[in-house]
């Protein structure tokens, strides 16, 4: 019963997605870059979960978190630069 109902939904889907340029998905390089902040924030903190040594006067863990906020911005900048999708669009604009 339930499966019957779902068939139209599945059949509708292709028409709902007219040829998107990013169908191929992001490359491995971009995804590896994107994984870095996750590793930094989720895995990295387990190694630096301490107050001392103070780094530039900041407790160790806080310094780590601040570092990764800045690195996240840099990583996203790199992804933006490296993503061929953005290059194509900018050419079209000019």
């Amino acid at each position, binding site marked *: 019963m*339930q*499966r*019957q*109902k*779902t*068939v*139209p*939904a*599945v059949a*509708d*889907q292709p028409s*709902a*997605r*007219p040829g*998107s340029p*990013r*169908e191929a998905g*992001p490359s491995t390089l971009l995804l590896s870059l*994107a994984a870095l*902040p*996750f590793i930094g*924030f*989720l895995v990295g*903190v*387990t190694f630096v*979960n*301490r*107050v*001392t040594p*103070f780094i*530039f*006067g*900041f*407790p*160790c*863990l*806080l310094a780590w*978190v*601040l570092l*990764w*906020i*800045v690195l*996240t*911005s840099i*990583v*996203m*900048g790199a*992804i*933006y630069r490296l*993503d061929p999708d*953005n290059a194509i*669009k900018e050419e079209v604009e000019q």
Partner: protein
Amino acid sequence: MINVPLLIIGAMAVVALYLGLRARKGRQMGLEQWAVGQRGFGSFLVFLLMAGEIYTTVAFLGGSGFAYGRGAAVYYILSYPCLAYVISYWLLPPIWRYAKQHNLVTQASFFAEKYDSPALGVLVSLVGLAALVPYLVLQFKGLGIIVATASNGVVSPALAIWIGAVLVAAYVSISGVHGAAWTAVLKDIVVLVVILFLGFYLPLHHYGSFSAMFAAIEDAKPGFLSLQQSGTSLVWFDSTVLLAGLGFYMWPHTFSSLYTARDHRVFRKNAIILPLYQLILVFVAFVGFAAILKVPGLQASNVDLSLFRLSIDTFDPWMIGLIGAAGMLTALVPGAMITMAVATTVANNVYRVVNNNADDGSTARLAKLLVPVVTLVAVYFALTANNTIVALQLTGYSLITQLFPALLLSLLPNNPVTKVGVFIGTAVGVTTVAVFGFGYLHLQQVLPGLPQAAYEVNVGFVGLVLNVVVLAIAAAAGRAGEKNRLATGRYPE
């Protein structure tokens, strides 16, 4: 005698109301114009609407209160948005494109359209409401604290909540998202200045330098500035950061604010700048840290007062007024966005499903009529609730992130899960949160004997895992059914 802080806060409220009402100028407020600004907002307004999400009372009072009460646990507020921004680079453009193609104005419509199921739209609406109401409540609760404390008790929290609610209802009904956008500009400017000032001034004034402040805290409370062995532990931190990072854009009002964009490129550029923009939140944590040794002894939900208590001990009344005004704006703007999302969702995704004949005009009228109703409900809870601000926010996140797996799957070229699977998965996740998160049951009672760390996992994360398990089973079942159909050559009609 003139109450200076109250005067300044009042003046700022008038300016906010003026901006909010003026934003309507010369526009016919149809549903699409009212709710998503006819999809015509440039990068600046979109940036502020979406970035503004992090400068709410959660950040302002909750952040400093949490730093004061729990120390290093507050770093979660700095961390999870970063993960959300990384995801946003790929997540937001396809959502925006699809919403534009289908003229969507709410988050629930996105699910209903993708899964071809108005019923799923209703479920998503309900999850959204369940998460948004506590979130709206905490904005009003924050507002009450701010005005009452800043005015030195002249205005009671209850009265402040009522006045704030009337302001929000007025400008949201009249100007919709345009009103919220223009007050967001004012809010971000005022709040940034105030946070930066407090974050620098209070530690330097009371301790001489940042490092002296941290050293003093470490002396008095060793280990407070690292995550604890139990309670707010590493496991808690990781599960909370991941949960909130995934859920960041799942809030119905955030989701629909991305519809306002004129162009999808803005989302990708935002992903580069936003981490730095929210770095400023660290100064909120500094305020809370500074308060630890200077105004000790605040307990339970009173920790949310730490910023104000320390400020009152430090500054002249006019500065308290300015801080109060900034705080009021952090409550009003998100309050407006949330109220609007709730009203639009109920009108568009619940009322319309019940009453098939409703056209755009009557839906828009109903949405606007619902604004005061939603506000009243939130006022009621704000007057009765007794949780800390951060606790309310995390409850909301636990619920709202349950929508993330279904959203992600719906963006795949071939979604392996049907609406039935999504329905069950989401329901399982939300139920888990409701049962364990609201304290009806504790995980220890159901699964005794696990290592202590297992009980420190954020309950929303537990729900998310069960949710994904259900979806995986549904996907596997779907694939088996597909094979079966291919083998027999029979398709159900």
